[in-house]
Structures are given as C-alpha cells and as structure tokens.
C-alpha cells in the first residue's frame, strides 16, 4: 500500500512499513547517521538522524520512524540542525581527534559530518576518557576503542551477517568498549567488512593501513574475479602510479553490501612487481631462463607453428571475459577449425564448496560464461578439469591461457611443471611467476582491472567489468587484441605463401 508523505514540503510516495530513513535514502535526501546501515538491523543508538515531525512534541530518529499517511517531516529545520550539531559534539567529546595519524581520515563519518553539520567551537575542556588502542582482534583487524563511537554496527554484523557473534560491548556508560570475548579472535573470511562498516577509524585494515591516504586514490566500479559469485567491487588505485591498493564491496543484488576477505586480495596480483610485463621466448639452451622478446616476434613464431603443427589444442581457464572467449574461439575454432578445446580448472571437489555467505570454491569468475561461449561454437561441455586429458594428448602445439590469479588453482605448480614438458607451448599469462618455468613462448596479458567485459556468475547473472587503468606496460594486451594480431600475422603468411 502506498502512503503519501512530505519531506521538507516535497511530496513522496512511500510503502507501508518503510521508515523515513529508507525513504530519504531512496530519494537522496540527506539525513546524517552513524548506527543505521541498510544491511543491518536498526539499533537506534547514535541518535544522530533526528528529524522533526509536524504535530509531535519531540524530534524523532528517522531510522526507526515508520511512515504514516500525511506525515510531514522536516530534515532541515532549526531544531533539527541544532540537534545534529549537538549529536556530533556528543560523539566527538571523547574522540581522540587523531586524524593526522588515523587511516580513516578522508573517509570518516566524523570528519564529513563536522564539515556538513558541525563547524562549532569545541566546548569540552576536561580530559577525555582513555581506552585501549591498537588491539589485534582478528584477521586483518586493528581495533582502536578510543576512536570508537559505539554505533554497534560491527556487533550487529557479527551477529546477523556472519552469525559468528565475535564482538560485544563491554562495560557501560562512557567506559563502554567494543571487544572480543576472552581468548577469542575474529577469524572468519569476512572480517574486513567490519572495517568498511565502521563509520570512524576504530576498525582499520592491517593490509591497507598506512599504505595510501584515500584522497590519493580513485575507485573503479568493477567485479571481483576471485570466485563464481562475482561480487560488485570498488577497486582503489592511483592512476598516475598505476598502483592498486584495496578492494571494497559495492552494493549489488549479488553480494548486498559485503564481500569476503579472499576477494579483497584480488588487487595484489595487479601491481607491477607481480606482473609479466612483456613477451618471452625460450632460450637456445633449455636450462637458461627465458628471454624477453618483442611481442611481434612471438606472435610471428606462433603463426608459423600454427601452420606447421598437425595437432593443435587450446587449454582455457575460466578467468577471462565472455568477449575474450568469443574472439579466441572465433579464430581458433571458427576460422582454423581446431576442435581440441580443453578446460583448465582447479580440483573439481573444491569447486563445489560454498560457505553459505558469498565465497564459492569455484574460484573462477566466468565458469558459466566459458561453457556458454564454447556451446556457441558447437563445443558442448560440462564443468570439469581437463588438464590431464590435454597433457596426455599428442599435441604439437598447445595454446594455454593461464589463470589470472595463479593461487586460485590448488595444483598450479604441478600443472605449470607438466605443461613445460609438452613439445610446444604458447602460454598466455599475466603473472610474472610463470617465468620460473620454460615454455617455447610466453605472451603477456592484461588483468581484469585493465579491461572491460563480461563474466557470468554461478547463477548466470551478467557481471560487467570496467577498466580502472590502462595496462601497466605497453607490451601487454588483452586476449582479443592478441588474437587480432595473430590473425593478421596468419593472413600475411597465407598471402605470402599464396603469392610465392
């Protein structure tokens, strides 16, 4: 049932059961708040989101205020502004105000609200309450109970989302502190969400803290490549430095407000020191390291091998985009008629795991997409690891697309070892680590953060990638671009043969 209400004299249609806060959020009407979070239950304790309702004697909190027909709400009246200012001052009197050394600075609710509704001269002149600081309370978590404003978001997250109940509020009054239970740490795969939902700098991430001030980062809205769930993410990077710093969840139907710690690690392999920055080819002496080689030469060599080879196979991991698979298969299957396309995956028994929240054992973002594109080219397959089938095949050319994130394959080292024993391998990869092995050639690929494209998650939902930066090196390119180059090279060879 729809209800008509007004906020600041503007009319809105609300749903029965909706709160004023929800309605205001929906229409981008600004009501400051700390304890309210759309993914958690209502606590109503920060008392910040005060609004005025016509005909009611007291200000009310918007987060627990159900809409009623004809309700007239004001979020900008003088009493409301006064209440917001004071609410902020109450929050800050015992806050250490250590912004210069706090990693939350730049994305802190206290700072933002001070600029928006505060700007008062502090009136508290007595000593502040001192509380424990720098507590190592769990995976990726540092807790500063002095900075904490006791909004209880973290406690509710532990109770309601992960149902691990790892946090409580101990003692009372202004001595109250957030803490873990005796001899217990918070050790699940979702701990960094506590850092995200903490509106101040009480919880900071061990991984991110002191690495980069947030105002020196930008965020790209893209998708986590860590598993088949495909959580929407904000990927923080510095475009000038081409460096990546962290991953945070962004709201989507798929992942709501959360993501796992494993997925948050998906920025590490993007940075230059982990990356394969150019193409390589085998040295004459098979025991010597591979040699950095011009990409054009490598593509030329591959085109030649394609002409000579009798038995050609593709070995494909489900970590690339639908668009890349289409380009790849259009050339190899559609044009060259190669039908030996094998999936390369981690152990099948691992891929069926699911933790009940978001994380899936199938740590490939595009398992569904790969099978669907294969089917478009008449190759019908079930999900499965065909690495051994390929290794046992008698191929004189194997084009292998390595996983973007090597660590997601439990047997990656054995696989890479086995692969180098095959007669002629063109390995397409983005991780520098592949240079520990010897292949006929290695081609450098872009990573998920450097390209657009589509994944299909475990349920078939399309997940769109958006590029954050241009590739870290001019010598690396996407599968689509490589295939184009290769096709051009093959055509040139054909033309040459045709004319000779």
């Amino acid at each position, binding site marked *: 049932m729809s209800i008509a209400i007004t906020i600041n004299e503007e009319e809105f249609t609300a749903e029965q059961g909706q709160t004023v806060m929800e309605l205001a959020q929906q229409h981008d009407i600004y009501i400051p708040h700390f304890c309210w979070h759309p993914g958690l239950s*209502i*606590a*109503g*304790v*920060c*008392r*910040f989101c*005060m609004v005025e309702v016509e005909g009611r*004697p*007291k*200000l009310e909190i918007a987060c*627990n205020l*159900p809409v009623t027909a004809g309700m007239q709400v004001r979020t900008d009246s003088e009493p409301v502004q*006064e*209440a917001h200012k*004071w*609410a902020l001052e*109450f*929050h800050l*009197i*015992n806050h250490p105000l250590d912004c210069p050394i706090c990693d939350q600075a730049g994305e802190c609710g206290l700072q933002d609200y001070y600029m928006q509704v505060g700007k008062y001269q502090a*009136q*508290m002149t*007595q*000593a502040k*309450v001192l509380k424990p600081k720098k507590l190592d309370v769990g995976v990726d978590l540092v807790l500063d109970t002095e900075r904490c*404003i*006791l909004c*209880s978001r973290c406690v509710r997250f532990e109770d309601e989302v992960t149902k691990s109940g790892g946090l409580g*509020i101990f*003692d*009372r*009054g*202004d*001595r*109250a502190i957030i803490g873990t239970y005796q001899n217990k740490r918070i050790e699940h795969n979702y701990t960094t969400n506590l850092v995200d939902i903490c509106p101040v700098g009480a919880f900071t991430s061990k991984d991110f803290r002191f690495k980069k001030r947030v105002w020196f980062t930008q965020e790209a809205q893209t998708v986590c490549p860590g598993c088949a769930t495909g959580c929407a993410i904000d990927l923080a990077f510095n475009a000038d430095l081409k460096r990546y710093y962290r991953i945070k969840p962004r709201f989507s139907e798929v992942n709501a407000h959360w993501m796992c710690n494993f997925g948050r690690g998906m920025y590490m392999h993007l940075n230059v020191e982990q990356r394969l920055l150019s193409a390589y080819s085998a040295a004459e002496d098979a025991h010597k390291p591979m040699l950095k080689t011009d990409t054009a030469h490598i593509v030329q060599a591959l085109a030649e091998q394609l002409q000579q080879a009798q038995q050609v196979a593709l070995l494909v991991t489900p970590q690339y985009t639908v668009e890349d698979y289409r380009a790849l298969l259009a050339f190899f299957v559609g044009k060259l008629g190669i039908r030996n396309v094998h999936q390369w995956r981690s152990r099948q028994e691992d891929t069926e795991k699911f933790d009940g929240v978001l994380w899936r054992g199938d740590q490939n973002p595009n398992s569904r997409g790969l099978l669907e594109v294969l089917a478009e080219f008449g190759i019908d397959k079930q999900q499965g690891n065909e690495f051994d089938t390929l290794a046992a095949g008698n191929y004189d050319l194997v084009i292998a697309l390595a996983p973007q994130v090597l660590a997601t394959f439990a047997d990656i080292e054995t696989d890479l070892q086995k692969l180098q024993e095959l007669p002629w391998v063109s390995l397409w990869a983005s991780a520098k680590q592949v240079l520990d092995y010897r292949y006929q050639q290695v081609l450098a690929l872009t990573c998920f953060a450097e390209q657009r494209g589509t994944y299909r998650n475990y349920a078939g939902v399309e997940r769109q990638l958006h590029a954050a930066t241009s590739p870290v090196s001019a010598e690396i390119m996407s599968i689509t671009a490589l295939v184009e180059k290769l096709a051009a090279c093959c055509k040139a060879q054909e033309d040459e043969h045709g004319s000779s």
Partner: protein
Amino acid sequence: MPDNLTKVKILTAFEGVPDSRTLTCYEAGGGYQALRKALALPPSEITAIVKASGLRGRGGAGFPTGLKWSFVPQDSDMPKYLVCNNDEGEPGTFKDRYICELSPHMLVEGMAISARAFGANKGYIYTRYEFFEEIAWLRTAIDEAYAAGYLGKNILASGFDFDLDHYEGAGAYICGEETGLLSSLEGKKGQPKLKPPFPAVSGYLGCPTIVNNTETLAAVPWIITHGAEAYRKIGTEKSAGTKLFCISGHVQKPGVYELPLGYPFMKFFAEEAGGMAAGRELKGCIPGGASAPILTPAELQDATLDYEDLAAKGSMLGSGAVIIVDAEQPMVELLKVVVDFFHHESCGQCTPCREGTGWLANIMHAYVKGEGKESDLPLMHNISQQMMGRTICALSDAAAMPTQAIVQKYQDELKNYLQAKAG
C-alpha cells in the same frame, strides 16, 4: 480534610500487625479474597475495573495501568508475561521494599489477578540485587501461595494457570527501566530496547509482556475487593488512590507514609514527617526521586502530592521519593552526587546520554574543586537541553532535568561558591 484526602490504609493495611508476611496472617486479614472474586469475573471485566479505578503506574511514569494492559494483543497465540518491576533503584526511594516487608502476599495476589486480566500464564518478580531479605520474603510468599493453590495450575479450580518465579537483578539502575529490565531478565546486558515495538506487543523473549511496578500491582487486590468507585473516590480526579511516599533527609521522622494523592505537601512535611530536624532550615525538596527537578521552599508552599500539580510546577511525582534538602547542604555537592550517579548508571547505548552524563560529571568534578567557570552553568543547561527527549529511555532526561533545575534555581549559590573558592 475533605473526604478524598482522608487517609486510607490500602498498601500499609498490615502496618503494625505481627507476622504480617505470613500467609495465615494475610488470609486472616482478608487476603486472597480478591483473587477468588476476580477468578469469577470475565478477564476483560478485571481490566475494566482497573481502568475505571484510575490506577496509574507507581514506578514513576504514571501511565494508566488498565490502559497499558489493554495494549496486549488478545488474538496473539504467543505466551504472555507479567513482570513485576521490583528493582527499586531511584535514589531516595524505599517504598517497594516496604511492601515486601509488610505484605509480600499482597503483591503475589495482585500479580495473579492482573495476569488473569490479560491472559498471562507466567510471571516474574524482578527484584533489586541488594534486597537480600526482601528476596527471601518474596520467595517464601511464592512458596506458600503455591502450597495453598493460589499459584500454579488450575488456581482455585478456576481453570486459570499462573506460574510465578522470582529473579534477582545484578545491581544496575537501568534495569528499573522496563525494557532494560526485560533485557536483563532474558539474560542479556541490561540495556533498554528501542521502541516501537512496546513490551505489551513484543517484550520478554519477543512475547507480549506487561511490566508493572510493585506498588501498582499491590494496589490491585484492594481495587477488586472494594470496586473502582471506592478507589476513585480517594485522591484527585487525575491521580486516584493512595501512594506511598518515602521521605528522607533532615526531617524529624523520615520513613514511608501512605497518603491519598493530592495531599498537601506542607501538611505531609510538617505533620506526618514532623518538619525539619532541630536547628535545620528547608532549602529545597526533590519530590520524586533523584531524577525529579528540585522545588524551592516558595514552590513547595502550595504544592500537592499528585501527578498534575508537581508536573505543573516543572517537577514530577516520580516514585514518591521525597528528599528534603536543608540549608547547610551545598548545592554543588548535591549536583555532583546527582550527575555522578547518572554517569555511573548510564548504560552507554545512546550517545547523548553516554557522553552527556560523563560531560556533566566532568564539569561538576572541576567545579567542586573550584576549577569551574561561570560559563559552566549555561553550558550545563545547554548540554542538559540536548540530552532531553533524545534517547531510547528516560535515563538521559533523568540526569538532565535535575541538573537544569539546580543550575537555574540555585545559580547564585553556585556562582558564589566559585568566588568563595577563588577568594
């Protein structure tokens, strides 16, 4: 005195009677006849009688009791609970323990009748941890009532079941707030719950629950026996019946007195309590427990002890704890004690209370040492203003209201104190 202000002994009927706590004595004085009468009535009739009697909550808020019961959804198939708030913690209050001392059976009987009214089959008495003797007396009374068939299954062959248990608090003032009490009863930290929903709809374990004060419940048997009209005749139109007043401070005869509501304050103070102790002079009076704003002697002259007159004077009847302040009592000390108390007892959930009570206490600590400033007084007024009506429960208001009153009414004394310290 007019008829409506003639003293009647309802809650203190057994005052001076030997062994008044025993079942035998209580029965001999007519005890449990009200329960028999109530069990013969349709439950809705009990609520109707209590509504008509004008009985209001005696814990401090003064909410009409029958109206509160009528909020329990009757179509709910969830179990319903009746909880007695015996967590008497408001500084200056010692009336509920007096009922436990005189007539614990009056409370047990009142609970059985009230439970019947809205269909609760389970009740708890939640008693303040420090009331060691009272707890023992209540437990004995419950055992006796079970043995006599006044509690348990099929009470007096009426088909009505009512089980009553006793629960000891753990020593927090906030558990006297009804939802804080329910959190504690559920085994959780004693923190008030966000409203709505109210306990009558979703209380103990999420089930419909009525929380009533000891004194409220103990008045129910008399009302059932004598009828709503008889109770209504006592007191004033909006404050019906009698109330226990506990007077303390420098008076001749501190103690608990049962008086009709509307009784003149000065008459109570001078005649019942015997006026000021020898050589003492009245400086003010906190009429309803530490959270009630203080009244000056001038304000007290025509004050009457009822909900409406004290509210009109900017204070409140509260729990009926009348604290007499004599002229030798420095107001800075009194204010420091008050804000210290609320700072210590704030549960810490809501920011304005958690931070505001601490801030007020900090200011007063410095002030008492002579390290205050005159500007502290308007600051304390402003802090208090922003603590009122801003939180889940009334503890924040309870700290703010007396602070504002003392700061305003005794500001000359507070300013002089600073100058004297400086000089």
